[in-house]
């Protein structure tokens, strides 16, 4: 690898340093990689790790009125853990998110299968069709459901107009079910993609082998396709579950009193009740709950995933 820049090494200590650095960059490709990565890493650390760190510190302080007491204390955590009701709210949020995840992934699997196996020529078109709704405004999509499920909304007025019902249905909106429907719709596209990827990457020869060895199509699906697609299913579940636990917009717009999730309480602590430390503690605990649940799913499916690879 010859290049003109290296035929005449510059002289002097600065020149020697430059040569040394150049040499190091040359030899250790990894170092070059790091240097390229550093601006991005810096941004990530500065804009994410640092704030989360400060959040953690805040959770150990206490606030009364407008004064924040900077003595480190576990008071907030004790309060949250000992008040059964706080833990119940977090538990409820996890449960709702879990329901959303199951519903979304179950609905997403067949269509991922469809695109991976049944579509030969226009895969790109289908993939684009699937991705586009996800990239439109989240707020608008949630709001669309609010006007669909509302008392005088699209479903109710449509049914009334068609003469099917007299009084509007009240169970459509302002409850956890509305939250599940809305979130399942909002996150559906993101659930499809990981499953699709793992199905697409699947070695077709394995499927052929199964058929040659006498498996019926159903058997082949259950014994080969499904297990091999588990990594995709798990990834998809994570991608839906984790963000939905902290969601506060959907519960606020369509949840009603019963559909409240922990995100609403966090928001209240910061914007109304004026207790930032308590809100921070709540955020940290929610994050931990999410991590633990995800870890649990990760470990449970570890065996299945190992076999898949």
């Amino acid at each position, binding site marked *: 690898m010859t290049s003109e820049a290296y035929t005449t090494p510059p002289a002097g200590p600065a020149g020697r340093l430059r040569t040394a650095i150049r040499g190091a960059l040359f030899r250790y490709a990894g170092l070059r990689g790091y240097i390229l990565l550093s601006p991005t890493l810096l941004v990530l650390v500065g804009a994410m790790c640092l704030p989360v760190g400060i959040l953690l510190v805040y959770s150990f302080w206490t606030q*009364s*009125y*407008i004064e924040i007491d900077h003595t480190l204390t576990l008071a907030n955590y004790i309060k949250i853990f000992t*008040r059964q*009701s*706080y833990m*119940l*709210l977090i538990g*409820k949020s996890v449960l709702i998110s879990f329901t959303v995840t199951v519903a979304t992934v179950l609905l997403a699997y067949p269509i991922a299968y469809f695109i991976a196996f049944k579509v030969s020529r226009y895969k790109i078109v289908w993939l684009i069709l699937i991705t586009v709704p996800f990239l439109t405004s989240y707020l608008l999509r949630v709001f669309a459901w609010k006007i669909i499920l509302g*008392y*005088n909304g699209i479903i109710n007025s449509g049914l009334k107009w068609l003469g099917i019902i007299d009084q*509007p249905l*009240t169970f459509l909106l*302002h409850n956890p079910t509305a939250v599940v429907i809305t979130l399942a719709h909002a996150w559906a596209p993101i659930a499809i993609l990981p499953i699709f990827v793992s199905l697409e990457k699947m070695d077709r020869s394995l499927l052929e082998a199964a058929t040659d060895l006498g498996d019926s199509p159903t058997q082949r699906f259950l014994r080969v396709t499904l297990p091999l697609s588990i990594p995709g299913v798990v990834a998809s579940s994570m991608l839906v579950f984790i963000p939905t636990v902290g969601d506060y917009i959907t519960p*606020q717009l369509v949840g*009603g*009193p*019963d559909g*409240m999730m922990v995100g*609403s*309480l966090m928001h*209240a*602590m*910061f*914007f*109304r*009740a*004026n*207790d930032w430390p*308590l809100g921070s503690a709540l955020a940290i605990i929610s994050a931990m709950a999410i991590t633990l649940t995800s870890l649990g799913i990760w470990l449970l499916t570890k065996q299945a995933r190992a076999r898949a690879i």
Partner: protein
Amino acid sequence: MKKNEMLDRLADGTLNRRSLLKGLSAMGIGVAMTPYFHGRANAADQATYFTWEGYEVPELHGDYIKKHGASPEVSIFADEGEALQKMNAGFTPDVAHPCSYNVNLWRESGVAQAIDTSRLSNWPDVVSSLKTIPGTQHEGKQYFVPFDWGNTSILYRTDLVDIKEESWGLMWDERYKGRLATFSGANETVPYASVYAGVDPWNMSDADLAKVRALLEKQRPLIRFYADDVSSIEQGLASGEIVAGSTWNSSNVLLKGEGVPVKFMNPKEGIMTWVCGLTIHPKAPNLDAAYDLIDAMLSVEAGKFMIVDYGYGHSNSKSFDAAGDEAIENAGLSRDVEAFLKAGVFSNEFKDRDAVLKMFEEVKAGL
């Protein structure tokens, strides 16, 4: 270079930088790269007005528009707690619109400055009892300009509700389960619950707080939604989704005007009264415009609109004459402001604000 050809070469990766730039500039994208202009040049000179929904209408600051040629910049809040947080986080409006019980907190938080009332031409006409509401003055200085006053009470559908007497108890009536709505702000809902429980809302002991909490927890299953704003309650009443909701005078005027059969209750335990007004932020960027805005809102024209169209009282004593006795009657107001306010439960500061707020947030969350 034709567009299609360019796209093909773009996708293939054979498009080189020079031709790309040529193509792009041909499409006029160069224009888009020019530095962003700063929007309307005069936007920076207008006062920023931070208020509840409905109060930004031009009829309430006509004099300001005459002087400055346009309405002020408006930002809406639904909850004073949220408003305070936003300001604490750095939002600096010129004029804000809290209610009297929050002025102390806002002043101590550093978001309200002493107001020079000599700069307000309409100040001498302001009802004197409103000038000296507890909490709005500090060390002889005025921190609050009273603007509007009125009631919080239950607005109910007379055709859908059957009650023998007017009482706050309607909000706990099991017959209307799932058809009631109340404000999500603690300042709005907790007081009437306390009044119904028979305790003094502004000086609750721990036992009192527990009693009110139990009552609010009893109410929760009956509530269809906790409203962040007046519109949801108004819409709900208009469509019949809810049969009763806690709200303010203006909703009564609005729905009656639309032909909806409603009545604004005068509960036997006492109707809630409040006075809200204007504060100036210490770091207000457009101080002169701020004073102009406040003065405009204190004017008689604004007051007349307030009484006739909104059904709220106005702080300028001359507005009563302009509005006329009939309008005052219709709105359920009175010329004797002091007596009016005393006849109901006047909104004040909670003794332990944080405890009350937190309690209500927990109740709402179902905890």
